[in-house]
């Protein structure tokens, strides 16, 4: 061995011959092709998960006791429009939400109603109401903007999921399959709106002598019954607003829209030009949150 270089004196023994290079190069090239191919395939071919077509239409009954005329409350109108949308195949619906910040009084009824509807545990919130204070004393004003999931058309949370547990439905809602989610929280980190929260397994009556039965009741997100008992999903999963899909299927508006006392929430099928939500979406005074992120949110704010 040469003390100067520290290399073995048997140069021939240490040489990397051409055959080794070719073998290593072929294995590396094959690996590279497989890697690039897998990524390209995953980007180009999104798996189809939801049924589409005529079998997804729903014929929902109209209310018999409530008149649906021009004098009706906006909720009644939106309810009728919802029935109209549900009569179409799912891929022809395009759910959207418009929130009129001038009408929002910051009562948090939507936040609470959402928690009750989806039986959210401590630390999980789908629709917080953010307060924004602007101006300078004495000309100060408060503005409230509820922040549901934006159901982005280019959702940054979807491609980061390593196990295909979240995807964009044909009607535009970004869904999560709690049975598939491994709880890695990559989607939670990727959402610029902080719209995904993780269920860390807390209960409101933690540390008290008895867990209250209401805490173990199943919720019905995505039309399934989910029980958090024995660390069952959605415990340990990422959770988020899904526009109350389970209610829509029954012809009911999302809980936050129904409970809004100021009628500041508009919800419906943006593909229906006659719908109230489509009408509001044409307003000039609209803004989208963090538009510079190019996520194309489906929740729009009127200011």
């Amino acid at each position: 061995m040469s003390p100067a270089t520290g290399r073995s004196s048997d140069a021939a023994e240490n040489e990397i011959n051409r055959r080794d290079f070719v073998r290593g190069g072929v294995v590396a090239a094959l690996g590279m092709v497989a890697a690039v191919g897998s990524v390209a395939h995953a980007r180009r071919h999104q798996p189809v998960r939801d049924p589409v077509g005529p079998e997804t239409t729903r014929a929902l009954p109209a209310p018999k006791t409530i008149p649906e005329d021009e004098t009706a409350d906006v909720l009644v109108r939106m309810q009728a429009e919802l029935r109209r949308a549900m009569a179409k195949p799912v891929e022809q619906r395009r759910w959207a939400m418009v929130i009129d910040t001038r009408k929002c009084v910051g009562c948090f009824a939507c936040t609470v109603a959402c928690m009750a509807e989806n039986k959210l545990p401590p630390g999980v919130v789908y629709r917080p109401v953010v307060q924004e204070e602007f101006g300078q004393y004495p000309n100060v004003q408060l503005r409230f903007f509820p922040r549901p999931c934006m159901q982005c058309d280019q959702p940054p949370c979807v491609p980061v999921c390593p196990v295909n547990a979240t995807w964009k439905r044909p009607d535009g809602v970004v869904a999560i399959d709690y049975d598939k989610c491994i709880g890695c929280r990559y989607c939670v980190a990727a959402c610029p709106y902080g719209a995904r929260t993780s269920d860390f397994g807390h209960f409101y009556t933690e540390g008290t002598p008895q867990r209250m039965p209401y805490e173990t009741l199943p919720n019905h997100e995505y039309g399934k019954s989910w029980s958090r008992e024995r660390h069952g999903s959605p415990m340990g999963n990422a959770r988020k607003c899904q526009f109350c899909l389970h209610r829509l299927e029954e012809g009911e508006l999302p809980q936050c829209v129904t409970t809004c006392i100021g009628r500041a929430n508009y919800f419906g099928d943006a593909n229906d030009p006659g719908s109230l939500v489509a009408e509001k979406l044409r307003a000039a005074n609209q803004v989208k949150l963090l538009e510079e992120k190019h996520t194309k949110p489906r929740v729009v704010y009127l200011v």
Partner: protein
Amino acid sequence: MNKRTTLKWMLGLAVVATLVGGIGLVQKFVTGERLAGYGSYVPWGLWVALYFHGVGIAGGAFAIGVVGYLLGVAGFREHLRVTIWVSAVSLVMGLFSIWLDLGQPWRMYRIFTDPSFTSMMAFNAWMYMFFLTLMAICFVLSVRKDSPTALHDRSGWLVPLLMVGGLIGIAFPSQSGAFFGVVDAKPYWHTAMLPIMFLTSAIAAGGAVLLLVFTFVLPENTPASAPPLAMLRRVTLGAVLFYLGAEFAELSIAYWSPVSAHRDAFNLVLFGPFWWVFWVVHLGGAAVGLALLSRQGSLPVVGTGAFVVALTFVSSRLNILIPGQAVEQLKGLREAFMHPRLEHYYEATQNEYLVALFIGGISVLLVAVGIKLIRQLVDSREATVP
């Protein structure tokens, strides 16, 4: 203190760390994530930093070991199996750390049965599996030779597969940087510098760990100028200096620019509640490491320098991971709904530290036991030489 005594102390401490840390592990299995400090606005904490540190050490150590082996630097060939073992333990313990971090850990298999390769996480997971398989094959190839005298034989598929392994060892620490870099939601992470910085810190930490292990593996009277130690020292020093340079580039650009989306995060790094992680652990650790490794000291001095770098470079992961999440993207969100899990502040809990202690302790023990078994294996084969 001679090498034997130092090793005894180190293993003793590792046993204590494993036992004490084991309490945290049991707590974790019993309580799930309820005792962890991360939340929904800072969803990744100490265990994720440990994971990236572990996989970084694995990739860095293997890449350096392979380069040394292929260049014929004395010491690397004889201890190729040690390099593979150190790398494998680091990777497996890193993966164990991230496995504990999952909300539904028993579903981890889904990354292999239903992967989405649009996700850097799935891509990384598959790379780790290929790497582990490749390391196992290289290990077997390096042992199962036709004759005991051919233990260090480079013929066959060993060299080509080591080359591929070396490439993967460079690739996946870089991908760890890309893992964060692709998250557009966090401006602090969304930079092309991250893959380079992750690779550099992997080389620094991997080189340091290998250097530390070699100070125990090589004979006691080996001078610090001996080829494998000299090479590892230089590589580690170079990587630490390069990392500090890259860090300075990032900092200076953020502070020079009149408006920078990164500045809030850097303010947290430099002057936030955990300022000491940067100034004391990171810079202090790097300074001590540089001072000890840059001189031709004795084996204990070199070993201490390597230990300091390997341990304190976890701060480089923490300083990227936490501040990136701790900056609010939507002002007022924290106040909109109050809960400890909805804070832009993260502090590791006792349970997280205990689990980290367990991972550190068990890693040291696994490396030591593995090296002992490898030595016995080599001795037994050499003893059968006619």
